[in-house]
């Protein structure tokens, strides 16, 4: 028997956060799967990896990162990729994801997901690097649409056209963040439904849900609130269009007690069950 759960990723899972290790392990929480933030387990040892191994023995997991910087014009960071590969070999995730974004320039990291200009140049650059990374890791990646707060004057296509082209060029899959598309759509004045209908059905392997924060002139993606009603509405439309895609609740700021996340995941599960 394997030391790890052999279950597949299905239904509404929760992002694994260190404040909840005890809740999960002591109570054998009834959650179908967890998403693990890759970089939180890049240390050589210690408690984080110890707990992760325990969680992994009971649950299937996915690896989600912010560090690949696929859109950056800096050289690919192969020490980062080697560490990620090692972690993947250690915990055997169902898949690995990162973002349609860049995070460094001139080797200065901003630790924030910055948007690309959706140009032919950026598309070719991103696709070429994604192919290299998929080759290095030996698997297909899921690429997630980011929340963004600015748009460039010089573009050749929309974000969803960029994603479509990327799938064609690299055979990658998509992680569709419904909250992000709502935030970006509001900030830049596009229709999330148009975005949704342009997604290549069958390529969307995971969905993210989270809570944004409302500012005077824009929405900000804090991952610090419950999922807002219009995002639930868009989620329902997404599941109707794409089918019961595995869905994840993300929460990173002011992390609440675990039960609240279980409750939130339960709401997503309800939508999945109703439409299935």
């Amino acid at each position, binding site marked *: 028997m394997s030391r790890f759960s052999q279950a597949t990723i299905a239904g509404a899972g929760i992002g694994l956060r260190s404040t909840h290790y005890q809740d999960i392990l002591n109570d054998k929480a009834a959650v179908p799967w967890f998403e693990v933030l890759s*970089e*939180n387990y*890049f*240390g*050589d*040892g*210690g*408690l*984080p990896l*110890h707990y992760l191994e325990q969680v992994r023995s009971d649950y299937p997991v996915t690896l989600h990162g*912010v*560090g*690949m*910087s696929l859109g*950056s*014009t800096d050289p690919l*960071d192969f020490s*980062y990729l080697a560490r990620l590969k090692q972690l993947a070999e250690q915990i055997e995730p169902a898949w690995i994801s990162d973002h349609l974004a*860049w*995070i*460094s*320039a*001139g*080797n*200065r*990291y*901003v*630790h*924030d997901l*910055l948007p*690309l*200009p959706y*140009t032919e*140049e*950026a598309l070719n*650059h991103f696709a070429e690097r994604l192919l290299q990374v998929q080759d290095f890791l030996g698997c297909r990646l899921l690429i997630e649409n980011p929340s963004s*707060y*600015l*748009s*460039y*004057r*010089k573009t050749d296509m929309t974000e969803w056209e960029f994603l479509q082209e990327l799938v064609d060029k690299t055979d990658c899959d998509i992680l569709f963040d419904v909250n992000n598309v709502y935030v970006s759509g509001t*900030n*830049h*004045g596009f229709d999330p439904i148009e975005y949704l209908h342009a997604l290549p059905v069958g390529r969307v392997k995971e969905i993210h849900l989270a809570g944004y924060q409302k500012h*005077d*002139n*824009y929405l*900000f993606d804090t991952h610090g609130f419950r999922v807002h009603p219009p995002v639930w509405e868009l989620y329902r439309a997404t599941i109707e269009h794409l089918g019961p895609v595995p869905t994840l609740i993300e929460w990173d700021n002011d992390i609440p007690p675990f039960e609240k996340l279980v409750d939130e995941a339960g709401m997503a599960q309800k939508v999945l069950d109703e439409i299935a």
Partner: protein
Amino acid sequence: MTDLRELQHLFRDAVFEETSDGPALQAFSKLINDSAGLSAAGHLRIYRGAILGTLTRALGNIYPVCKRLLGDQFFDGMARIHARNTPSQSADLANYGGEFGDFIASFEPAATLPYLADVARLEWHWHRAFHAADEAAMDLAALNNVPLADTGRIAFRLPASARLLDSNFPVQKIWQVNQDDWQGDQDVNLDEGDASLIIWRKQYGMRIDELDSQESQLLGAIDNGALFNELSQPDMGLELDTLLPRCYQQGWIAGFTLDA
């Protein structure tokens, strides 16, 4: 590739430049759209706030005692200056912040707290120890089997998590009374004197142990790569017969190799 590269470098410069409306921001603003409620520069400033906020929070998480000693507002202001001037050079945010202690030492407005830089160094060592490699116990049988003629070439090593810290201030005490769960007196007498500390992890337990002068001298020499034949020189003045077993039992010596 030049368009994309230039745009990204300009974006970065606009985020980190000193003034709120500097040349990089003005140049970058020409490349992005304004919207109903926000100017182009306003859009960039959302990122500036988020990025400096993330780095400032990261420093606050690594340096909670410094933050407590300075107060949130002073600490955040100082951390923001550091974040603007000291690039993060790794995709892993856990690697950021190691230069903060040296920065504090040279940060004029914090000079009234002369022990602060050492408290920061202690907190950094703690942060690194938390993520350091796990250790198996040292192989004593292998040590006993080293032929007598080779003992001079033994190079002991400290646990992977361990860092030594010497300070002119009782920084361990300062650290301790500023923990959330500390119940006792908050006063620390700064004349209480020097501290020689080892900050490390024993299995999963974080530790800050005080060293006496013999222990500190021995572990310092080992940390600098001294071999057994150097440690046993009379002028080192180390009572190795009792000192070595004691340090081993404490867990401060985690292994050895034979120098070629």
